[in-house]
C-alpha cells in the first residue's frame, strides 16, 4: 500500500487491517496524531485524508491505497505557523495540547470548506467529536472564528522550539 504523507510517498509494510494511526506514529515517527481513546470517540488522532478530517485510529490501511494524508506536522513550522495555529497561540486555545493537533486539522478543514468566516455554531458542529479534557472550549471557539476572519491580535511572539535533554 502506498500513501502520500505530507507530500511524500510512503510504501507501508503494515497489513491492511492496521490503522493509519499506527503507520503514522510507529512507522513514520509522526507523533502529532495522538493515540487517545483509539475508539474514534476523542478526536485526538484526527488527520486529513484527501483533505477531509478523519480519525486515523478508524482508518484501515487497506482502504487508503493512494490516499493523501496531512498531519499536524505539515500545517506550519515554529517560525511560520499556519493561520489557525497563530490563532490558537494568540487566544490561548491550547492547554495540555493533547487534543490540539486534531482540533487544528478539523478547524483548518472547516475554514477551507467554508471559504470564509465561520460562525461559532459551525465550529461547534465541526469540532463536536473532539474532546478537550482541559475544557478549553471557549478559547478554541474564539481561535477558530478569529482564524476564519483572518484576525490577528499580534500580541504574541511566535513560539520558540526548545529541545531539551538531547545529547549533541
Amino acid at each position, binding site marked *: 500500500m502506498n500513501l502520500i504523507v505530507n507530500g511524500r510517498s510512503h510504501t507501508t509494510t503494515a497489513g491492511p*487491517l492496521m490503522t493509519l494511526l499506527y503507520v503514522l506514529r510507529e512507522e513514520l515517527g509522526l507523533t502529532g496524531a495522538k493515540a487517545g481513546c483509539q475508539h474514534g470517540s476523542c478526536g485526538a488522532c484526527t488527520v486529513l485524508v484527501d483533505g477531509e478530517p478523519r480519525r486515523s485510529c*478508524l*482508518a484501515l490501511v487497506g482502504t487508503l491505497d493512494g490516499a493523501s494524508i496531512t498531519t499536524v506536522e505539515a500545517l506550519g513550522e515554529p517560525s511560520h505557523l499556519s493561520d489557525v495555529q497563530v490563532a490558537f497561540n494568540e487566544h490561548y486555545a491550547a492547554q495540555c495540547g493533547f487534543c490540539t493537533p486534531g482540533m487544528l486539522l*478539523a478547524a483548518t478543514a472547516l475554514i477551507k470548506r467554508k471559504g470564509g468566516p465561520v460562525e461559532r455554531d459551525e465550529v461547534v458542529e465541526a469540532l463536536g467529536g473532539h474532546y478537550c479534557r482541559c475544557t478549553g472550549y471557549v478559547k478554541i471557539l474564539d481561535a477558530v472564528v478569529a482564524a476564519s476572519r483572518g484576525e490577528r491580535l499580534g500580541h504574541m511572539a511566535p513560539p520558540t522550539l526548545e529541545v531539551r535533554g538531547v545529547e549533541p
Partner: protein
Amino acid sequence: MPDPEVVMAGSEAEAVAAFGDGSGVTVIGGGTVVTPLLTHGALWPETVLMLQRAGLGGIADSVVDGVVDGIADGIADGIADGGTLEIGAAATLAAVAAVAPEPLASAARIPDYEIRGQATLGGNLMIGGDLQTALVAMGARVRSAGAGGERVGPVAEFVAAPWGRLVLSVEVPRPRAGVFVQQRRRHSHTHPVLTVAVARWADGGVHVAVGSLAPRAPAVACPSVENALAGGAGPREAAAKVVEDVSPEDDPLASAWYRRRALPVLVARALEQLEPAPKGGHMNVPEVGT
C-alpha cells in the same frame, strides 16, 4: 490464530460472492465500529470483507427534474408519490444527510463530522443505529444477500433479524413531510436514549416509528398511534397510545420507567412539528435517569 483473509471487493457481485452465507465473515463498510474491535483483538474473524470499492456507495433518485421515473411495486402500500431514493449500503451518513428527505436526513446527522463522513448506511442498520427508526417510518425496503440468495423486504423485518445478511441497498420512499426527534445524553457517541420518526404521506396517512428502546433493540412501528391519528385524535391524544406498541427496557442510558414517560412526549412533539397544531404547546421531557 491465522491472520484474517482480507477481501477488497471490486463490485457488488464480488462482495456477494465473498460474503456467501456470512459465516466467518466480518464486513467493513466505513469501519467505525469494527476497526477498534480489530485493533484491540476483540474480534478476529476468518475473513474481512471490505466494501469501500464495491460500488455500493451511490444514491439514485427516482425523481429527476420533477418527473417520477418509477416507483417500486408495493413500497409503503403505494402511497409514495414523491418517488424513491435507492441508497447504496456503503453510502456515508454525510451523503445520506445531504440528499435524503426527512426524517432520514436528521437521523443521519449524527453529531460528529468525521464519523458522518466515514460511517455507512449499511453499517448503521447492522448495529441497530439511529437511522433504522426513520427508515421504518418511511416504509423503506432493504435489499440484502446471504443464505438463500438476494432478498428484498421491509426494513422493520430486516432490523429484527439482520444476522447473516449483507446489506446491498435500501429503497426509501419520499414522504410529503417528516420529523425526527431524539433524546440523547450529552455525548456525541452514545446511542440515543429514545428516537422517534414520523412521516406524512400523500394520502394524509401518518407513519410513526420509535427506536432505542433497549440496547440494540430494533425500531418498531406504532400502529396504535397511527390508528388513533386516522380516527381523528390530536397529536397528544394519539401519542399517548405509543406505550401500547412498545416494551422499553432498562439499560445504562435510561430506565424503562423513564422511557415509558418520555416516549409519549417525544412522539407528541414530533407529530406537532409535522403538522403544527394550534393546541400544541411546549412539552417538557423529564430528565434522563430519574
